[in-house]
């Protein structure tokens, strides 16, 4: 062993190790790095291809394995459709109520000025991430920036937390690194949503700082308040589940089921610009 430590081999290995330490330090102090960009540029097309194969195989296996479940679900859905037909007479009234709510919260005006990216394909997922972070095939060359919100038609999916030249990484709102100002559409009560490891396993986040006398009930919809300047106002976040008094006794905490499951996403959009972007007190 002594000869090994005094040999050229050891010197070369020490140089490689020093190079890697350099990469680590560079990556830690800079927002973007050449290593990730280079690897991403090479592997993005391969990832995209393998991901599409993986999705096809999963879907086929899923059909074969869960045929019984789908049959049961089909029966249940048929019953549900019958029930929905019975409720159709109330639709006109609900439509009016919906229009009224839209006017109240001024959703229409909040949508002005939103600039969406081209559709972004989910090309891969961060292995073993409990929050379900994923990679999309658009990067800085497509105008994507840090902390840009990522959405679908169903609501907000997360935020861009890593931007490379040809791809980006998205951290879902389930993450404990994300805090987002929200309010309840029906009651107008405000709060902040935040994630945790424990809740992420159940696919939920919590809404904190809700007033003690809140009127929110299960099934209410919460949307973004837009105060932070990071995300436009009025994007659906999820539905309210159970609420309970927080441990400090000063406010209530609610469990929110996000409208989007990050593991089911295949295509998303990035909001690259909107009225009031960066104007909030949070950065």
């Amino acid at each position, binding site marked *: *062993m002594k000869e*090994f430590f005094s040999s050229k*081999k*050891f010197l*070369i*290995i020490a140089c*490689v*190790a020093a190079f*890697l*330490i*350099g*990469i*680590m330090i560079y*990556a*830690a102090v800079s927002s973007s*790095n050449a*290593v*990730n960009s280079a*690897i*991403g540029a090479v*592997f993005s097309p*391969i*990832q995209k*291809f*393998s*991901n599409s*194969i*993986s999705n096809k195989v*999963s879907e086929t296996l899923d059909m074969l394995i869960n045929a019984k479940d789908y049959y049961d679900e089909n029966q249940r859905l048929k019953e549900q459709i019958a029930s929905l037909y019975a409720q159709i007479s109330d639709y006109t009234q609900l439509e009016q109520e919906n229009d009224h709510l839209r006017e109240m919260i001024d959703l229409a005006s909040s949508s002005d000025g939103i600039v969406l990216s081209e559709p972004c394909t989910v090309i*891969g*997922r*961060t*292995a*073993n*991430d*409990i929050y*379900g*972070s994923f*990679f999309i095939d658009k990067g800085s060359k497509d105008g994507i920036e840090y902390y840009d919100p990522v959405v679908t038609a169903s609501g907000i999916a997360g935020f861009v937390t*890593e931007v490379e030249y040809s791809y980006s*990484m998205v951290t879902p709102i389930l993450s*404990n690194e994300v805090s987002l100002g929200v309010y309840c559409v029906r009651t107008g009560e405000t709060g902040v949503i935040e994630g*945790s*490891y*424990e*809740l992420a*396993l159940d696919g939920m986040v919590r809404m904190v700082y809700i007033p003690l006398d809140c009127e929110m009930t299960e099934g209410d919809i919460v949307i973004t308040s837009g105060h932070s300047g990071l995300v436009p106002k009025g994007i659906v976040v999820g539905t309210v589940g159970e609420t309970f008094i927080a441990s400090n006794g000063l406010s209530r905490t609610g469990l929110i089921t996000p409208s989007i499951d990050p*593991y089911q996403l295949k295509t998303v959009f990035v909001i690259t610009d909107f009225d009031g972007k960066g104007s909030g007190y949070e950065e």
Partner: protein
Amino acid sequence: MKNNAENPSAKLLRPGVKTALKWLFFTVSAVFMYTSSTSGGGKPQAMLLFPMVCASAVFETEIPSAVFGAAAGLLLDVSLGKLPGFTALWLCLCCAGISALFGRLLRKNIINFLWVFLLVGGIYLYIDYYFYYKIWAYEGYRLVLKARLIPSALKTLGWALPVYAAVYVAERLSGTQRKLDLEEQDKNIDRV
């Protein structure tokens, strides 16, 4: 002619070509393992690159092992969303160490590979857990160990034997001479 007649496959490919094919196989396997680890759903994934580089280090010399370990480590860093260089540095040093160890002190067999792999993987698991979760003490951080890191480590361990076997076969097919272990090479040792 006689030699060729006795062993027709011996000169089928030149040693340099065989070595190139072996490294091509390792590279393609590494890319496949990288893409497969980022293509799954929400379940814990096996980190196949980990046993792959450790197994190749058993048979290769120090420098190729260290470089392959560093390259695979960078791929793992990207797929796991870690700081680039975090896993690469660990695998670079460990692969060089494994190679030196198996070249000088240990016999190249699966038992020795397994305990060395367990040691390298176990320490990495703790370092990963400590620096990425424990040190920050986020609420419920222990759950990550139970729900992600340990299941992933167990899956990786389960794949270690097939991966070792694949690497072993590749090494044999490439015609790499099995080096004798230290005591067998030592001419000063009398054998009965």
